[in-house]
């Protein structure tokens, strides 16, 4: 089935337009009505080093990039050396002709031609896009349009440059890879972009964050688009300010969200626990990278699962959910906003670099987004912590003639501090009761995704779901993929039926946290656990082989 997938890889130094070229390539495919998945691999540096983008496209659904590429453009020697092994059968390796050495493939004078104009570095990415256009048989007119919308700065130079490259490459590779077109036009968004829109759809008012890869682009998106959406973005002095400001805003009635990666989140734990006590509906977007500590900032991992589930000291209900694909990230973000407001407790949208910073063609049905109107107090004396049956007290926002007291100390129903043993126990129970209300609510919700109907059972979650689904296509494997969307509370009621079944777990963690979670909380029996923890997402072909191995061992 891989046959119908076409993969383009472009590699070069950071600062040479590689990422941009990758995203233009993705758009180019999408404009052909094809499905696209784009993964950007970049280091924690600003210029130099080695960046690459892989864009895989198919005329059917595609949920992962492929390592094996049909067309590679290497902008520098390092890219050539690192990626020559990635060239598929009948693939074409193109490299900048200034690269020296004994090279196989076709040299194109990307740099030499660029040097004829000012700021040559700004052209290189366009050069790579141009050869791609040539290879897939795009005509000059369409390419020109693409350049107009994607490379509008120095437009004339760009068109002139691209034309030269086009003409040089055409005789060699013109139309080598003609791809099916279709009329279906889909948007392409990265995970962070779509989380931003999902939050917007869910009613977000204010976003607080301090930059941290791979979460920063969520802030950047909201900062850029916020004005249109009526969303305010604040980037304060540190993550502790982030979470405490957000809680202040929530008190005043604003739907507020914060975002970070593991290290920044660690700093928010005290605030997270505060939200638990105040019963503040705080939504946090935690984008993971390999840890512990600073770890590997620009790569991907699922090592924060337990950390997320057990955020914050003391006992209070926590909600943790993780989207299994970029599309789902849209709905789930709005749903999580709904849930935290419904149950007035903090929640975490747990995701990974591989989702937040990869891009995909999408089909979003905006009406399916949730947009919860909080339970409000109307008339009568107000008690912030009314000891209601379901543990949930109505909200009221200032200004009001009523007294609205949110309190980090244990408190009575009005919100005044207490040290009284009966009241302490009562309030612990009240908060604990919300867990039950939450469980009951979730039992009527879609909490587990299931793909496929027969064959071996594969459990996975988060962005790894995208890899697994593509691996099944790549390896032509008939299997059932079970992906719990919610991780806390884990929807054990949906998982019961798998109790005595053989199952394979796939996750990006060294300790196998997800497999343990399934074992411990749902009493499942992960026979084999396929793990990857080198910061790179799975390649679907390799993963397919591992799955097949696991199946035959199992």
């Amino acid at each position, binding site marked *: 089935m891989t046959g119908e997938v076409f993969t383009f890889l472009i590699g070069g130094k950071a600062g040479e337009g590689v990422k941009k070229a990758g995203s233009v390539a993705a*758009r180019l495919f999408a*404009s052909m009505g094809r499905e696209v998945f784009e993964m950007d691999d970049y280091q924690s540096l600003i210029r130099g080093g080695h960046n690459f983008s892989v864009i895989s496209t198919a005329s059917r659904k595609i949920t992962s990039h492929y390592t094996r590429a049909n067309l590679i453009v290497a902008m520098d020697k390092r890219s050539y050396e690192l990626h020559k092994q990635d060239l598929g059968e009948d693939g074409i390796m193109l490299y900048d002709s200034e690269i020296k050495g004994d090279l196989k493939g076709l040299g194109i004078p990307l740099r030499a031609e660029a040097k004829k104009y000012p700021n040559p570095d700004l052209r290189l990415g366009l050069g790579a896009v141009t050869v791609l256009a040539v290879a897939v048989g795009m005509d000059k007119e369409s390419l020109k349009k693409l350049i107009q919308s994607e490379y509008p700065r120095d437009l004339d130079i760009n068109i002139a440059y691209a034309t030269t490259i086009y003409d040089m490459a055409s005789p060699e590779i013109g139309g080598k890879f003609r791809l099916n077109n279709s009329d279906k*036009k*889909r*948007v*392409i968004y990265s995970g962070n972009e779509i989380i931003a*829109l999902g939050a*917007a*759809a869910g*009613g977000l*008012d*204010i976003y*607080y964050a301090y930059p941290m890869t791979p979460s920063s682009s969520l802030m950047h998106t909201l900062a850029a*688009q916020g004005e*249109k*959406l*009526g969303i*305010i973005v*604040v980037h*304060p*002095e540190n993550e*502790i*300010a982030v979470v*405490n*400001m*957000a*809680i*202040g*805003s*929530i*008190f*005043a*009635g*604003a739907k*507020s969200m914060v975002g970070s990666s593991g290290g920044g989140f660690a700093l928010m734990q*005290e*605030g997270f626990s*505060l939200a638990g006590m*105040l019963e503040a509906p705080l939504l946090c977007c935690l984008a993971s990278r390999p840890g512990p500590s600073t770890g590997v900032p620009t790569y991907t991992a699922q090592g924060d699962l337990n950390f997320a589930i057990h955020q914050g000291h003391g006992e209070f209900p926590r909600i943790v959910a993780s989207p299994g694909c970029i599309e789902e990230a849209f709905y789930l973000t709005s749903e999580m906003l709904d849930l935290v407001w419904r149950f007035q407790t903090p929640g975490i949208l747990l995701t990974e670099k591989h989702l937040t910073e990869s891009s995909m063609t*999408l089909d*979003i049905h*905006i009406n399916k987004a949730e*947009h919860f109107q909080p339970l409000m107090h109307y008339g009568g004396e107000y008690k912030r912590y009314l000891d209601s049956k379901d543990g949930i007290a109505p909200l009221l*926002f*200032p*200004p*009001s*003639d*009523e*007294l*609205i*007291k*949110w*309190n*980090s*100390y244990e*408190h009575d129903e009005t*919100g*005044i*501090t207490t040290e009284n043993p009966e009241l302490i126990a009562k309030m612990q129970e009240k908060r604990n009761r919300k867990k039950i209300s939450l469980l009951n609510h979730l039992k009527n919700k879609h909490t587990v995704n299931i793909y496929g109907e027969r064959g071996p059972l594969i459990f996975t979650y988060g962005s790894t779901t995208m890899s697994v689904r593509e691996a099944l296509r790549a390896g032509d494997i008939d299997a059932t993929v079970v992906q719990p969307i919610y991780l806390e509370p884990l929807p054990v009621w949906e998982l019961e039926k798998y109790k005595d079944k053989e199952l394979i777990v796939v996750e990006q963690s060294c300790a196998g946290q997800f497999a343990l979670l399934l074992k411990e909380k749902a009493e499942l029996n992960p026979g084999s656990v396929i793990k990857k923890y080198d910061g790179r997402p799975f390649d679907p072909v390799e993963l397919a082989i591992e799955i097949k191995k696991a199946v035959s061992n199992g």
Partner: protein
Amino acid sequence: MDELITYAENTWCPGCGNFGILTAFKKAVKKLEDEGRGKKDLVITAGIGCHGKIFDYLKLSGIYSIHGRSMATAQGIKIANPGLRVVAFAGDGDAFGEGIAHMIFAAKRNSDITVILHDNGVYGLTTGQYAPTSVKGFKGPSTPRGSIEEPLNPLALMLEARATFVARGYVGKLDHLVDVITKAIRHQGFSFVDIFQPCVTFNNTYKRYNEKVEILNHIPADYDEAMSIAKMEDKLPVGVIYRVEKPVFHKELYGDFNPVLKKLSKEKRIAEIKKMLSAL
């Protein structure tokens, strides 16, 4: 004035300077009400410490926050609904130990909140450890042989951090304190009131302050004069030490918008998103 007081039992030590702050604050609220600035729009936050207990005693809405964060919480409230006036109560350990970053940045960005510092030179509630404002040599249970650090100067630090309103008061000069607090709350922008608040149990400074505190009879002409007053040691002037008008944070952020009261309608929002989602 009792309508400003809740049913919570007051557990400050008899003679504690915090009583003066409570009284002065209530009077200031009254004064502001008389001017038409109703207490309905007034919300409070507090840190953790003896000072924080004022949250329970005051019949005003707000958040009893965590140690060191009341000014971050306060800023968040203001950003969400700039129609509210927000007062953050803070201890000296709270504001200049745990939470010093928030103080400096609240001043730097001219957040339109008021911070009232219960400056007792000690960690009261945790039984008397030295605080960032304690004098060198202060003996507390974490420094039984005397603290070895020089104190910070809250006024000077806030001036350095660009606070637009900096004042000092003393619970031993109650009417004056009421006046200072009132002016601080009236100020548009970040206002900071450093209140000398003797802790009778762990740092009884009444005598020292009674000797040294003097009421300023003018507002200093400029920043430099303010700074030199802030740094005086023989005398401890109280009053408004610095005041200047500058654009406030929330207006710089979004002009006349109000995230809570002027929300985009759901329909408009969805229409915008749809536009984005249809663009390729």
